[in-house]
């Protein structure tokens, strides 16, 4: 009997928490399909009376949503590729190669993790302005290119590669580059996927830096565009919800399809932080 009550309570709490977690997202989807003005009523309607794609049409036809979507995709994809390039090589070097000063440099990197990125923003802005990178995709990509967290993540994983494998290849006379390309990279595939998701989500969801560096509205990413739209269209709830759907849906789908890799990386990144 006691067991049955406990089962009921635990499953009840699970359902309650799931409702709280998903309700705002489901409501966003529902309101985004309502006629303009329909959601500004009391009591708030839960489902659209006649579902319509009007708001999405309005967003893409008039508010330039297609442009922002393309900007976000371009910036997040480029950031991801560059982050893979830099961090995977460095992570592998810190895990498996010997070089002078390696331990010291790594300790320095870990210590630098406590510095919040915003400290660098003012000088970085001035630097990029000198380099002509303010108001360009490049300016938005720069801070996400190489990161201490990414290097750390790859290093943790690369340490599990057997040394014998690399030594055998060296004895066979393979160059270090060839070893990296033909043996190490294929073996690191799972962590590459993990790092790619982290970089893509991080770049896509980032707000403060793109807000600072992309003044030109043609270059705005989705979060920046959405924030300025929401200041203009305070009353257009249906339109804003459609904008939120367009912003959130791609990353939510990415997460759902690669959930295993994402959660694995989250755990690896926080072990021994």
């Amino acid at each position, binding site marked *: 009997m006691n067991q049955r009550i406990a*089962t009921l309570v635990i499953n009840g709490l*699970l359902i309650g*928490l799931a409702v709280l*977690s998903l309700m*705002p*997202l489901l409501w966003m989807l529902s309101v985004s399909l309502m006629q303009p003005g329909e959601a500004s*009523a009391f*009591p*708030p309607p839960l489902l659209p009376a006649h579902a319509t794609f009007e708001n999405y049409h309005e967003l893409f036809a008039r508010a330039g949503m297609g442009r922002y979507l393309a900007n976000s995709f371009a910036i997040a994809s480029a950031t991801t590729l560059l982050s893979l390039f*830099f961090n995977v*090589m*460095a992570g592998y*070097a810190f895990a498996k*190669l*010997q*070089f002078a000063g*390696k331990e010291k*440099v790594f300790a320095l990197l870990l210590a*630098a993790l*406590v*510095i*919040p990125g*915003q*400290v*660098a923003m*003012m*000088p*970085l*802005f*001035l*630097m990029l302005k000198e380099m002509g990178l303010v108001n360009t995709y490049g300016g938005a990509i720069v*801070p996400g*290119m190489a990161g201490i967290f990414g*290097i750390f993540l790859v290093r943790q994983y690369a340490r599990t590669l057997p040394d014998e494998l690399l030594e055998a290849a060296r004895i066979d006379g393979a160059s*270090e*580059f060839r070893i*990296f390309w033909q043996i190490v990279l294929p073996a690191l595939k799972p962590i590459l996927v993990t790092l790619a998701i982290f970089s893509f989500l991080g770049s896509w*969801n980032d*707000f*403060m830096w793109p*807000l*600072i560096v992309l003044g030109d509205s043609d270059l705005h990413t*989705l*979060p920046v565009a*959405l*924030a300025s739209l*929401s200041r203009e269209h305070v009353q257009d709830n249906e339109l*804003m*919800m459609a*904008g*939120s759907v367009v*912003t*959130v849906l791609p990353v*939510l789908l990415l*997460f759902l399809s690669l959930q295993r890799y994402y*959660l694995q990386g*989250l*755990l690896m990144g*926080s072990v021994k*932080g």
Partner: protein
Amino acid sequence: MSTGTRLAGWAFAGPALIVIALFFAVPVLAALALSLTDFDIYALSDLDNLRFVGIDNYVNLLHEPLFWKALGNTFYFVIVGVPLSIAVSLGAALLLQSKLGRFKPFFRTAFFAPVVTTVVAVAVIWRYLFHTKYGLVNWGLGGIGIDPIDWLGDPQWAMPTIILFAVWKNFGYNMIIFIAGLQAIPEDLYEAARIDGASFWGQFRHVTLPLLGPVLLLVGILTMAGYFQLFAEPYVMTQGGPLESTVSVLYLMYEQGFKWWNLGAASAVAFVLFVLMAGITSGLLWFARRRGAE
């Protein structure tokens, strides 16, 4: 190991290190220098207008009421938000670890979904959920006889609303870390506690919590560091208002630096935040080490 691999080490690590040095280390050091100057919109157009002012920016900051307000608001957010987030994360992790729960993979994904969403987009949703007139929240409260609350328009309620938002958005992240921590606790310990007649609460206090100690410390530090960087939520939901009740330290830095172009003063704000975060983190570590030693 040959010189070949030694060179290879630098060749592989080099590119990333150069990028980090150029776009992170140098700017951080430059920020320290910048915070000692009166860099403003005139200096932005002509560097001849730049003057060294020593610690004036820091002194001015201490005399600026808005800075203290922002600091207070940020501490409010951190001190209430971090424990609340951790409690919800731990609760959710315990629920998902319970043998009695069903459909766990579904629930885990559902709880985690808000974590991957875009802050700006979901803040827009929350602004609407908490709308005084048309929001779902006030409608629900009306059902149990509570008068509508002006969540984001009342200085007393704006920060609590943002805290609730942050808990909702973030609790799934720490939940995953807690689940891993709970799985590492040997089942025999619970078995032994049960034989000694420990209740569910007793098991939690005497087995789960002590063994989860290091994980709690880690989660506490990571969450705190994140919460000190409050920015997008007030930017979208309240624009710092009402009556500056949601101006955070970073919000102040953004306005100083990129709205008024006082880049020197903004750098000082950033450094104060950094020193505070570093100080509190080392304090927590010191505290944990002392408790661990006893």
